[in-house]
Structure formats: structure tokens, C-alpha cells
């Protein structure tokens, strides 16, 4: 078990109802963490999400480490 911080933006922030949460998890990868949180929050289906760890884009297979900050990135719409 280690400590992870998750930040939420836009549609996910509104869905979850907070900008971030800290949690203890034993999820091995970013994908596992998403699945774990999806069971709790029942995220809206958003097509192809991206994900960032410690403010850099990464693969869904990226292993989690204690203290990581994770952001699930819904489809963007800048401009």
C-alpha cells in the first residue's frame, strides 16, 4: 500500500465532486488505479482518456510509486 494523489479536471471534477483526493492503494499500474477508482466513482465513459503521472503524460501500464500524483485526462477542447 502506498499514498497516491489524484487530481480531477473538468467533467471528471464535476462528476467526482472534488478537485483532488489522496488515497492509499495497492494498484500496480495507472490502469489498475483507474479501475479501482471507477468502482468507487463510476466515471462517465469518455472514449480515449489520457493519463499523466507527476505532470507528464504516461502509458496506462506505468507502475505506480509512493507519492505519485495522477491525473486522468478527458478529451481536450482548447482553442
Amino acid at each position, binding site marked *: 500500500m502506498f499514498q497516491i494523489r489524484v*487530481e480531477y*479536471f*473538468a*467533467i471528471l*471534477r464535476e462528476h467526482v465532486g472534488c478537485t483532488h483526493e489522496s488515497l492509499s492503494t495497492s494498484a500496480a499500474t495507472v*490502469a489498475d488505479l*483507474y*479501475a479501482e477508482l*471507477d468502482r468507487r466513482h463510476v*466515471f*462517465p*465513459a*469518455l*472514449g*480515449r*482518456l*489520457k*493519463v*499523466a503521472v507527476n*505532470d*507528464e*503524460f504516461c502509458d*496506462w501500464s506505468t507502475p505506480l510509486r509512493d507519492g505519485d500524483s495522477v*491525473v486522468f*485526462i*478527458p*478529451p*481536450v*477542447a*482548447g*482553442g
Partner: protein
Amino acid sequence: MSRFGFSRGPVDLAACRAQLADPAAGAYASFEGWVRNHNEGRDGVLRLEYEGYEQLGVKEGERIIAEALDRFDISSAHCIHRLGELEIGALAVWVGVSAAHRDAAFAACRYIIDEVKHRVPIWKKEHYADGNSGWVNCEACAAHATEAKGSHHA
């Protein structure tokens, strides 16, 4: 000085443009995204709200500017994206590029706005005249993708 930035207040276009000055530059191309009153066939957009993941956004924005400087023969390029609530007609994003010649200025300007729209983590919520609102590019997915639930990282 950063070449990509977010702004929570109005953008000083004259100051932005002045930063690109170069005595060897004969061409300046700029693009602005304005908040319009319609989107994807839907009228009655009253205002927009932009939210950004700023720490990652500025890194990705800087990478895009660096790519443009690498790919095109330009002098300088900058981009600023607004965050927060914006009224119809307001400037949402500005891209400016200076170059010796106009081919490169136009191509780099287009490259930057296209990449920013696709890669920088910014989200746009539209507020409509009928009282509804929605996150652009997200609501349609959420509505159509119930059967595909869980395939987010396929």
C-alpha cells in the same frame, strides 16, 4: 521567458505581438480563437468556461512551440490561452509567429494552433441559452459510449 502561457485575465495583444519583433523578420502570422455563439451545429452558446491542467499544459505548450521552431524557418513563436469564464466575442487563444518569409510564418502558426487544440489539457464548457451546459468533446462520448464503458485505455 515562457513562450506558452495561460492567462486568467484579458490578453494584451500589442504586448504579445511586440515580443516577436525581429529586424530580420518580414512576416508575422497570428491566429486568435474567439468565443462564438454556436458550436457543432448548436446555436445559442451564451458563454464559455475554460479549465486547464496548468502544470502539464505549460510543458506541453512549450514542447509544441519548440517543435514549431525546429520544423519551420521562423524567428519566434508564442501562444497564450485564456482560462476561466469568457463571453461571446472574447479572445480564447492567441498564437503569433514571426519569420523572414510568410510561408514559414503561416505554416508554423497553423501547426501551433492545431497541436494546442489536440494536445494541451484544456477543457471547454459551453453554457447555452436554454440553461443547459456541457463539456465539449466529452458529453457526446459520455452519451454514446455507455456500452464501451471501461475501454478507456484500449
